C-alpha cells in the first residue's frame, strides 16, 4: 500500500476542514497518515483518526503557529527523510502552500500546485489541474519522490470512517534561523454573519454593482435569506470589500446550494471558484456576459432595482 501523508492544518487548535477533506482523498489512495504541528495537534488527532488517519505525527510547539512556513518545513523535512512517504498532500491555502513550496525546494522534488483532483495510476499519482485559468484541465503525472500535491479546498468531500489514529509524538526539528517571519497579531475581518465556506446560499457582487456604496443591497438580501456575501476579484482589487470575501481562483472555492452572482461577468478567475454550486442565478445587464452561459437562471436587468425587490419578496414570503 502506498503511504499517503496529509499535512493537517490546525485552526484554533482543531483540525481545519481542509485537513479532513485531504484525508478522504488520502484514504482512497493508500494508507493515510497525518502530520499535525502546533498547539492543539494532539487534541486534533482524534478527529483526524475518525476521518481515516491511521497514524498522526504530532508536535505542539507554539513556534509552528507563530512563524511563517519555516518551522513546519524544517520538521516535515526531517520526518519525510525518516519515513519516506510516497505522496504528501497539502491544501492549496495561504499557509500550507508556503510550507509546501519551501519543503519541495529543499527536497529538490518540485510539486504540483492548485490541483482539483488526484488519482493513483501505474504505481504513481496523476493530478488534475486547471489550465488556461480554468478553460481546460491538464493531467500531470507527479515525478517527485515523495510526490507533493496541493489540492484546492472543497475539491473533495470530508467524511468520517470512525477509525482511531495511533498518535506519535515527534520532535520539533526547528533550525536556529527558522524563527524569522514572526506573526505578531491576527485580525479577523470576515463578516460576523455567515461564513462563505459554510453558507448554503451565497450572494456575490461584482463591478456591475457600480460602487461599494451598493454592497449593502446584497447584505440586506443575504440577511433575509440567511446567506453569505461574496465578491469578485475585480471589486476586491478595487478596494470595495476585503479579500476575505473574494470567491475565485485567488480567493475561496465554494459550492453552496444556491449561488447568486450580481453584476459579475463570469471571468474564468471567478467561475473556477463557484461553478460547482448546485444552482446558479445570475443578475446582469449584459445578456452576453459569460455568466449567463453557465447560470441555471439568468436575469437580464438592473441589479440595483431587482435586488431590493427580491429582498422584499423574500421577506414577505418568510413572514407568512
Amino acid at each position, binding site marked *: 500500500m502506498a503511504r499517503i501523508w496529509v499535512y493537517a492544518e490546525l485552526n484554533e487548535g482543531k483540525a481545519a476542514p481542509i485537513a479532513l477533506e485531504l484525508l478522504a482523498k488520502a484514504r482512497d489512495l493508500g494508507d493515510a497518515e497525518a502530520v499535525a504541528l502546533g498547539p492543539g495537534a494532539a487534541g486534533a488527532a482524534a478527529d483526524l483518526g475518525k476521518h481515516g488517519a491511521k497514524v498522526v505525527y504530532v508536535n505542539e510547539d507554539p513556534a509552528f503557529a507563530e512563524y511563517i512556513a519555516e518551522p513546519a518545513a524544517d520538521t516535515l523535512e526531517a520526518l519525510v527523510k525518516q519515513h519516506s512517504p510516497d505522496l504528501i498532500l497539502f491544501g492549496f491555502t495561504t499557509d500550507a502552500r508556503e510550507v509546501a513550496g519551501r519543503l519541495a525546494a529543499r527536497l529538490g522534488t518540485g510539486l504540483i500546485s492548485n490541483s482539483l483532483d488526484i488519482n493513483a495510476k501505474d504505481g504513481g499519482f496523476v493530478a488534475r489541474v486547471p489550465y488556461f485559468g480554468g478553460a481546460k*484541465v491538464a493531467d500531470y503525472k*507527479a515525478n517527485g519522490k515523495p510526490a507533493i500535491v496541493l489540492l484546492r479546498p472543497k475539491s473533495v468531500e470530508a467524511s468520517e470512517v470512525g477509525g482511531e489514529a495511533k498518535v506519535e509524538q515527534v520532535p520539533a526539528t526547528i533550525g536556529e534561523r527558522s524563527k524569522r517571519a514572526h506573526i505578531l497579531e*491576527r485580525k479577523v475581518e470576515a463578516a460576523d454573519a455567515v461564513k462563505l465556506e459554510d453558507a448554503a446560499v451565497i450572494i456575490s457582487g461584482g463591478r456591475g454593482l457600480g460602487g461599494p456604496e451598493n454592497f449593502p443591497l446584497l447584505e440586506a438580501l443575504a440577511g433575509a435569506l440567511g446567506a453569505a456575501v461574496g465578491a469578485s*476579484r475585480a471589486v476586491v482589487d*478595487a478596494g470595495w470589500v476585503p479579500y476575505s470575501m473574494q470567491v475565485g481562483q485567488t480567493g475561496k472555492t465554494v459550492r453552496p446550494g444556491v449561488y447568486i452572482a450580481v453584476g459579475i461577468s463570469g471571468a474564468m478567475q471567478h467561475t473556477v471558484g463557484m461553478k460547482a454550486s448546485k444552482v446558479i442565478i445570475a443578475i446582469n445587464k449584459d445578456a452576453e456576459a459569460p455568466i449567463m452561459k453557465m447560470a441555471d437562471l439568468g436575469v437580464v436587468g438592473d441589479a440595483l432595482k431587482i435586488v431590493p425587490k*427580491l429582498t422584499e419578496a423574500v421577506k414577505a414570503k418568510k413572514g407568512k
Partner: protein
Amino acid sequence: MKIVVTVKQVPDPNAAQGLEADNTIARDREVVLDPGDEYGIEEGLLLKEAHGGEVVRWSRGPERARDAIRKGLSMGADRGILVTDEQLSGADALLTARALAAAIKPESPDVVICATESYDGSTGMVPPMLAELLDLPQLTTAKQVEVSGSKVTIHRQTEDGYQVVEAETPVLVTVTAGIAEPRYASLKGIMAARAKEVKQLGLADLGIDKGEPAETVLAVNDAETRKAGEVVEDDGTVGVEKIMAVLQAAKVI
C-alpha cells in the same frame, strides 16, 4: 536599500490563447507584463523613494521578456537582469525558482519582491521556493508593507482577515494586487530607460543544470462546463418572480 523585483510576461489575459505541441502554453501570442507584477514594481519604487537605494528588475522568459523589463525601467527601476534560455521553455516552478535564485544571489538584495501568483499558472509556488533557495524569510500576500531600519512589517492577507508579520532584512515579500496603484511611465522615464543596463544571462552562466521536471503532462482536455439555463429579460416583475421560483425549488425559502 537594494530591492529586486521579479517580473514575467504572460499571455495577454484578454487575447485568444493556444498550446504548443508539447502542451506548454504558446508564447508566440500577444504577451503582456503580468498584471500582478506591476504592483510589485510600484511597491519596490515606493520603498526606494522612501528609503533610497536601487531597484533591480529581474525577469525569466524568452528574449522579448526584455520588453517587460524595459517597462519597469521606464517606471523608474535602475537596472534589469534578463534570464533567457531555450531550456527554460515550459520550466516548472522549481526550475524557475532555481534560475531566479542563481541570478539574484550575487546581487545580495535587502528585499526581494514578487507577485503572490501569476495570472497564467496561478500556482503561487515560485516565491516560497525562491525564499527557500535564497535562505530568506518570507513575508507573503502583503497588502501593506512598512520598512523601519532593518525591520520589515507587513499586513498579510489571510482567508478571514489579516496578520501583522515582521522580519529582519534580507526578506522576500509577496504583494497582492491593490497594494499600490502602479504609476504610468513618463516620457522622460521611457527615454531614460533606453540608457539603463539590462544584463542577459543563460542557464550556463548561472551554473544551472536543468534536471528532471516535477511533472509530466499526460493530457490536456476542455474543462467541464455547465449548460446554460433559462435567460429572461427583466420587465420590472418577471426577474424577481423567476428568482423566487428557483429559490423555492431549491428549498431555500
